[in-house]
């Protein structure tokens, strides 16, 4: 009786199994690497309309974060300063610098400077700056070493697992309140003690961030 299937068909099953497994593994690996915020967000560094340097302002000049981002302790939103805040100094310093033309124009006309947003959580996440900076979480924990950036880039993934890592173990990031905006602080602190004393219970429930 002649065989119905050709001889090479004998190896078809194992080949399919191995090949399929390989493709599956590659796809899974690819998705977990390329499709997660660790890849899609970290390193994002758009060109801003004004070449503002955090390194100069924060690190070299030592201006406190809250001088410009003055809403950070009071609101969920850490505000981008108005042009008028820039002009507090720049009406005297570098007052004719062409790089600051847009700032001066904005101050005069009221037309906003179109800064490109870098850090953004999805709309269904209700992140609140004030509760973090008032309870011992520094800017660097989420934004990275902003004080060393000439141009700001996305330093941390800000994914849900990133949030949860800290909400589960706040002691790794908590620091004394006077060190919140001291971005280069490298001191040691007993995080567990602070978490206990301040009754830090960040919560892992859905309702903490999603409403």
């Amino acid at each position, binding site marked *: 009786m002649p065989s119905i299937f050709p001889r090479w068909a004998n190896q078809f099953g194992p080949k399919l199994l191995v090949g399929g497994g390989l493709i599956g593994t590659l796809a899974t690996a690819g998705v977990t690497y390329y499709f997660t915020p660790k890849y899609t967000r970290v390193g994002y560094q758009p060109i801003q309309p004004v070449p503002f340097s955090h390194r100069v302002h924060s690190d070299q000049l030592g201006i406190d974060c809250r001088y410009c981002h003055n809403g950070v302790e009071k609101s969920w939103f850490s*505000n981008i300063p108005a042009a008028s805040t820039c002009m507090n100094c720049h009406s005297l310093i570098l007052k004719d610098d062409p790089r600051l033309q847009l700032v001066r124009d904005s101050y005069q006309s009221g037309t906003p400077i179109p*800064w490109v947003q870098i850090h953004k959580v999805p709309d*269904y996440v209700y992140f609140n700056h004030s509760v973090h900076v008032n309870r011992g979480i520094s800017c660097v924990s989420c934004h990275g070493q902003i004080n060393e950036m000439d141009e700001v880039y996305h330093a941390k993934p800000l994914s849900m697992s990133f949030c949860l890592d800290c909400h589960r173990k706040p002691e790794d990031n908590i620091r004394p309140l006077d060190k919140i905006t001291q971005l280069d602080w490298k001191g040691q602190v007993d995080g567990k003690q602070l978490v206990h004393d301040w009754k830090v219970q960040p919560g892992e429930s859905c309702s903490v961030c999603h409403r």
Partner: protein
Amino acid sequence: MKTIPPPCPEPETGRKYWRSLDHLQDKPEVREWIEREFPDGASLAPDGESRRDWMKIMSASFLLAGMGGLATGCRRPEEELLPFGKQPEGYLHGGYKFFATAVPNRDAATAVLAKWQDGRPIKLEANPLAPGSHGTCACVQAAILDLYDPDRATRHTHKGTDVSAAKVVDALSALSKQFASNSGKGLYILAERSSSPSRNRLQKALKDKLGESVWAEYEPVDLSAGRAATAIAYGPGVRAVVKVGNAKRILSLDADLFGTEQGAAGAMAGYAKHRKPGDEMNRLYVVESLLSITGGQADHRLRVKPSEVLAVAAQVAAAVLKGGPVADKLRGLAASSPASTKWAEECAKDLVAHAGAAVVVAGHRQPLSVHLIAAALNEALEAPGKTLDLVSVPSGGDAVSIPEVVSALNAGSVDTLVILGGNPAYNAPADLKFAEATKKAKNVVRLGYYEDETAAISNWHIAASHFLESWGDARSLNGTVLPVQPLLQPLFGGLTDLEVLARLAGLEQTSPYELTRQTLKDLGADGEEGWKKFLHDGFLANSAYETASVSFKPGAVAAAISGPTSKAEGFEVVLHRDSKVDDGRGLNNGWLQEMPDPITKVTWENVVTVSPKTARDLGLPLEKGTQIPQDQKAHDGQYRQITLRVTVNGVSVEGPVWVQPGLADGVVGLALGYGRTAVGRVGKGSGFNAYPLLTSTGPLVSGAKVEMVTKRALVAVTQEHGLMEGRPVVREANLDEYKKKPDFAKNMDLDGHLSYVPRNPDGSIKNIYQSPYKANPWTKSDINQWAMVVDLGTCTGCSACVVACQAENNIPIVGKGQVSRGREMHWMRIDRYYSYDPNIPASSEVAADDPQMVVQPMLCQHCENAPCESVCPVNATVHDNEGLNVMAYNRCIGTRYCSNNCPYKVRRFNFFDYNKRDNSFADADDHHFMDLTGPLYHGPLGKNRYAEKEWEIVKLVKNPDVSVRMRGVMEKCTFCVQRIEQAKIAVKVQARDSGNVRVPGNMVKTACQEACPAGAISFGNVLDPEASVNALQNDPRNYTVLGFLDNKPRVTYLARIRNPNPAMPDYYASPRSLQDYERIRGENPFEEHGHGGAHGHGDDHGKAGGSGHAAMTGGKGGQI
């Protein structure tokens, strides 16, 4: 081991505790509706599109999404952050502020705080600082939606063409100049009623400048009809302000105190004050023709025709008044009273016994004589100064009424008619033919919020600004001056009435801000500080109307009381203010439209209400085997009602019939305000217009003919939605019974005997649904735990909470067709139950004629052992660490298992993208919110006809702190989690490096709680001993709905206590629902049978209770 609770016994003779007539008769359709979580066909695609079409649309969208993904890489689109050029002082992005303002309505405004966030108002709350502050009514909650209504007047027009605001101002100045030359001859101003002191001042200024001009005021529903009586009894300029909060005995003469009368929120608050069971508990007698929420609260309710109220009032007054000219006058009137002598005499005796703490209120629809009798009664009961204040009210000058304006128009003596607000072309008395008469005026100038019927007869139409975009002032019911301050610039450059009047009068100062400041300066808010304090507090201290020192004039009252005019044959028609859209002003407000009527539970339209007996007399089709007329319901659970034609003097209106238990026989109730022809997209096609029957003689019309029309109409009713079958979910008792056993409610249903339930070794009930806290105790927060208590004793069912919840939580409206399919999205529903005398068999034709009513707000109960959580395959509904049952919308895949497994039926499913629903349609004839399907969101390739500009306006009303849910997602009450989280954050921010992170017990107020005028809802953190919920949870009346399921809900209820008068002929020893419960269960909750405890005992007490009950029923028989 599976626990099978003992079956809930159903009596063979029918139920006595029901939501609708069909439910009463236990129709198969109702059974089916109960058994299905969603009605038949609920998950089908809307008509007109087959499943195949949907596949096409969906695959196309996937393709598009894929292409989009390729083109943009995997990054989200770039967004810009736009800071200010110059930082405004005090502005903090993301924060919110409250500004004190007021919601004007006729001549009584409500003091509110408007929540302002990111540059716009998003929510109105009662101003807690203002004197006599107490929640808000539903219409106040919904007022903010009008601000963002894309259908409001967005332009000024002259003879139909758009004109600029400057042109309007020029035209007004030209008018001013024209009339300055002849001192205003031919200038008529027809205004809606207002309490604004500034408008009064300008009215006077106008009269000073243009002495010949005529000022008229008109309200189609005149809530101040009683003022004429007060003027006769005490002299002109005197007004009576009822203080229900001081009254222990209240007699309402056709007055819907808690619903459609003025100051309903205040009345509810006052009523609730003395509604706690105890010796100080108040008692409410209601004589009425329609069933109102006030009647639902009544301890004794007398159902009479509207024309008979006078006789009942006279009968009571005859028993109260001892001699005097008024008493002499009454003798003849009382003869025709339908009430038994005993009813009137005992009621009178009770009132007299509480002289000084009793009040009689006459309804605004009733004729002058009833108000006069009420005034005489109040005088005899020593009410003035105690339960009502007689105050003198400053007036802006004489005002004529609309008939004078029409006769002047017809005489040709009107040159220019200025209409300020209102909508007389739609709602003026029909016999006046107002719209025709206006053609005889040379010029009609109209300031209006909508381009409505009146806009069509005006050559100038000036867009009015919303009160949240204008400066002004107002007075509350007791006269306290309130600011009206803007929270944003007028969106469409509207003008206020103050501006128009000032320009007409030719005043130099025309800015509403300056005009208001000037008025307040005169009233005593002097200087910058006084003004700032006025704006900050939201009221002017000690500015209430002054108490009038006047004396009662019995002679004048007696002379003015007249008997009823000759009694006409036929039906009596009551043209009443609608509890949602008022006189028609709220018709384009989707929140109000979709709120189920507190009594009928009808949405989106008005109906012709008749009593069951009237329906029988009319020969409406009867159900086989029973005498009760059938609600005309089709097989799919939808009400298709027979149409009735009501004819008076040759004028007829047609509308779908609604058989309303509790209505007086021979009476037809017609709600005003519907069936408008020139209205926005929401109100288009909603209901029928009853105004053609309203004539100058008033809202009570007799001699009507009613006939059936062979036409049926779909009516969207929610009364059977979320039905909980056969269990005593509402529990009530009389005060005497309560005193016997205050915790009777815990002793009802299976809660009283849980011995059958299998238990764990530790004594707890074996439950297949387990709280996550049990397995993982560390997940339970020891800082905050949330709970709510709802007091059924004070809840009137007014539904303000429903709208407040909708405003706070971005709940979409779904339209009439969707409601009729059971897809309404309200997170909160008010269940209204009827119950009747169990001694009447259900098959009897009179069973539904005169029911008692109970209401129960039902919302997510936040069970600790939540049945919904166990069945969710994707963990979308889970417990948080503070006792909330939360929904993670992003996880939800829409299986709806949770909803099926919810014993309370409080979950809502987004069948469509209601929030993206297209309500800007090209087709003028479309009645989109009325259609069964309507323009639902058709996906990215569907015809999306939303104009971008309109969408921008519609979006503004959304609360930015709450996710807007999309299609295919389950949602439900969250306990206002956004408010909880904001409070937690506020407390933590304040705590900084300390451990004081517990949220104070009463700090968080949910939206429903804040809106409730009666204070029936309490919410708080039970871990704080100060929290008011703690005390209420320990109240003996506290019980759990379906407690035997061991779900351990975080929402508990306080049983309702009634306070009937044992001396009254219609006294009932138990509320009827309780009598029914006792009859069906054969047990008496006032007898101990070991409730709720872990101790085991035999199950034989049921029988023992049964025999005890039999004896009790025998005892009761004599009393009923």
